């Protein structure tokens, strides 16, 4: 294998309220596909941002070809041959492919752009990734899969020796993914190294020469090509056997609490969604990014106007029109984007927790601070929220505790149906386990729980039943005994419904 091209030594990174990385090591050799796996919040993204010069490390060293380097920006990293491709592509849809490839480093003099050079160079790198489009094509005319390849071409045009790909297949179809894998193998054969971050263990098995596992901001282990197998990876990621991690108990289901009939969202106008959830039932919603899962929850809750259909909670309801109306009916939504939609970051823990129930607890128009304190104290102990005090701004808490605050806000209203959108995204493993225990507890107490998740393990571990979505439709439904990664993926990519059932 020779000398590593890139070496990470004892890197530590802290954020307010959480240690993202503590003393992490990593070596990347030339011409290899290194898969980096770990649960959300394990520190993968933090490390990748450090490697790509997006953020500095607090401690530790980066070596490129044996020499210590210090990046103060993305351009420094590019000069050292490291390029990062974000999960959400950083491309300008209104510009041409060539303009995107050279965005921010247009060659030329005195503000004049050297179009000839751009065109020649664009053609060269597009060829390397096997993308047969004219450099003059507008990016918006390409599919997501092709845009992904443009990102890789862009990285290649900076002479990248290491390309970091963060969940590159999260919004690709199966065909597009396979095309991407070919390109990755091709790049490896040409001497480029790829750091491949993914939750899809199947892909990792297929693609990786080596797998490095992170857990809670630390190295959790490494697997050589011949050692890579599904259970070994999961064990390292979770830190114990999976069966112990997701604790579900058998309990009887009650009446149908949530009944969705012919619901149509703005994003998928033609598709009518129909399903039911019973009291005490935990139902997972699986699917690829862009399958319309979050849009369904938003429409169901009235967060974004639904075009038609009825949402009945315990038999009552109608077309969802506003969150306010929905929460009056007994629905609660923990949104995907915790910081953007769930929390008010610059308000106190206390004020966040009581926000939804203020009206119920008020004395006329006036705040009832005694009741508020009482509620906050109850919730803080019930969900074991770790905060120095209820006055602390939500911003300064860790992801897991922030998520508990959002949960507390809704539990204060004692909802009948709890909707969760990616409930454990970006929180550490301990907090994750607590959230799972809470979900189990809510179900046992008779709540109907509907959760969207992109993590296969989570769906298979927590759900009694899973709805799988593809392009805005529910393509299938699986009972717990029929769960398998293959069956879910097949439905999620629009596979044959009958076959899976």
């Amino acid at each position, binding site marked *: 294998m020779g000398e590593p091209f890139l070496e990470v030594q004892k890197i530590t990174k802290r954020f*307010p309220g959480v240690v993202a990385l503590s003393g992490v090591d990593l070596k990347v050799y030339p011409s290899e596909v290194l898969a980096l796996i770990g649960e959300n919040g394990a520190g993968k993204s933090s490390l990748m941002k450090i490697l790509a010069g997006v953020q500095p490390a607090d401690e530790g060293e980066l070596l490129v070809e044996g020499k210590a380097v210090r990046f103060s920006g993305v351009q420094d990293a590019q000069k050292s041959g490291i390029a990062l491709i974000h999960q959400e592509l950083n491309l300008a849809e209104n510009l041409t492919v060539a303009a995107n490839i050279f965005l921010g480093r247009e060659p030329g003099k005195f503000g004049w752009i050297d179009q000839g050079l751009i065109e020649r160079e664009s053609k060269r790198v597009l060829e390397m990734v096997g993308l047969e489009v004219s450099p003059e094509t507008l990016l918006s005319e390409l599919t997501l899969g092709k845009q992904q390849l443009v990102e890789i071409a862009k990285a290649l045009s900076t002479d990248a020796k290491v390309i970091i790909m963060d969940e590159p297949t999260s919004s690709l179809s199966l065909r597009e993914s396979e095309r991407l894998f070919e390109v990755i193998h091709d790049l490896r054969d040409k001497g480029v190294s790829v750091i491949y971050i993914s939750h899809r263990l199947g892909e990792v098995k297929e693609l990786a020469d080596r797998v490095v596992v992170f857990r809670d901001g630390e190295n959790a282990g490494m697997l050589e090509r011949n050692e890579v197998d599904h259970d070994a990876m999961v064990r390292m990621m979770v830190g114990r056997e999976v069966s112990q991690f997701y604790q579900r108990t058998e309990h009887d289901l009650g009446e149908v609490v949530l009944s969705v009939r012919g619901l149509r969202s703005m994003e998928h106008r033609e598709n009518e969604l129909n399903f039911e959830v019973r009291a005490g039932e935990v139902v997972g919603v699986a699917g690829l990014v862009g399958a319309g899962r979050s849009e369904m929850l938003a429409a169901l*809750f009235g*967060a974004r106007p639904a075009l038609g259909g009825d949402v009945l909670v315990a038999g009552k309801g109608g077309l969802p029109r*506003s*969150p*306010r109306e929905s*929460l*009056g009916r007994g629905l609660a*939504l923990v*949104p995907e984007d915790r910081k*953007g*939609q*769930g*929390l*008010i*970051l*610059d*308000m106190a823990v206390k*004020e966040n927790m009581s*926000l*939804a129930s*203020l*009206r119920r607890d*008020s004395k006329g*128009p*006036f*705040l009832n601070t005694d009741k508020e304190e009482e509620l906050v104290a109850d919730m803080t102990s019930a969900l074991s929220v770790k905060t120095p005090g209820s006055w602390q701004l939500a911003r*300064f808490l860790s992801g897991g505790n922030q998520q508990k605050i959002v949960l507390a*806000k809704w539990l204060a209203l004692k909802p009948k149906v709890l909707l969760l959108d990616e409930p454990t995204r970006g929180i550490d493993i301990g907090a994750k386990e607590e959230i799972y225990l809470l979900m189990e507890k809510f179900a046992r107490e008779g709540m109907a729980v509907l959760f969207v998740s992109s993590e296969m393990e989570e769906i298979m571990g927590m759900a009694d039943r899973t709805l799988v979505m593809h392009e805005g439709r529910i393509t299938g439904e699986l009972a717990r005994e029929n769960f398998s990664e293959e069956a879910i993926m097949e439905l999620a990519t629009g596979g044959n419904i009958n076959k899976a059932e």
Partner: protein
Amino acid sequence: MKKIKGILITLIMIYVATAILGENFLGGYNQGKLLERTGLYGLLAIGVAFVIITGGIDLSIGSVVCLVGCGVPWLVMRQGWSPGSAVAIAMVVALCVGLWHGFLITKLKLQPFVVTLCSLLIYRGATRGLAEDQSQGFGGEHEAFRQWGTEAIEVTDKFGIPYPFVILIVVAIIAWVFLNKTIWGRYLFALGNNEEAARLSGINTDRMVILSYVICSMLAALGGLLFILNGNSAQPSDFGNFYELYAIAAAVLGGCSLRGGEGTIVGVVIGTAVMQLLKNMINLVDWLKSHMEFLIVGIVLLVAVIADEMIKQRVRKLK
């Protein structure tokens, strides 16, 4: 208390400096005048603070001042209305103005800056048309009505607390209770910080935003009324010019962030006092010339904002 410490220290420093450098600063007449000005401008600043807390802005305040300041004497003197009905109609107009702004901003999703910029032009233009660009005032009549803007509660024979300042204190107390003791106040701060999160928590955010624009326009109208009662002469082409900027500056000095979600009523009142004190200082200190007013106010505002931001960033780092 922590939030207003900086502006309070600024107020005291400028006060002491002016007392030392300026002549007649501590005289009863000057002190009364300072309170009167603070009272008049403070109403506008409290109004705009509500809008700024929601993350919006209102540039039409000066034009609303002009509309009411010219409109009320026009109705009373030229149209023969009673002062009471003229005031009532002015308040109804202000209510409609606020509802209109709020409607455009929440339902049509227009930007507050653009909406109120258009209003700034429209209301002033309309007033000039209505008053045929003629100066409006009460002449020597309606003394009793005008007392609301001119009289004072006597403390000594030279110093009294002007009615406009008393009115400001009453309004400030109501505003403080509203923002800090009612659920609506909490909602305003919540939606100013993160409108989407507030909406998803079941808050009718549109209604709250509309309410803030109504409060702003009505306080601008109240201010405009007191300005004309106090001054007794309003030229439609320049009455209330730039007052929105004084109000916004005072609110920002007092700790409101234009990003929304932040601000205290006490801070805004002190911010207004600082602005008026600066003007007063420029008048009283010999070597400061009156044409330097904008320069000095601008610099003080900038320094205050920079200091505030630096302190905030340091606090974040410490945590």
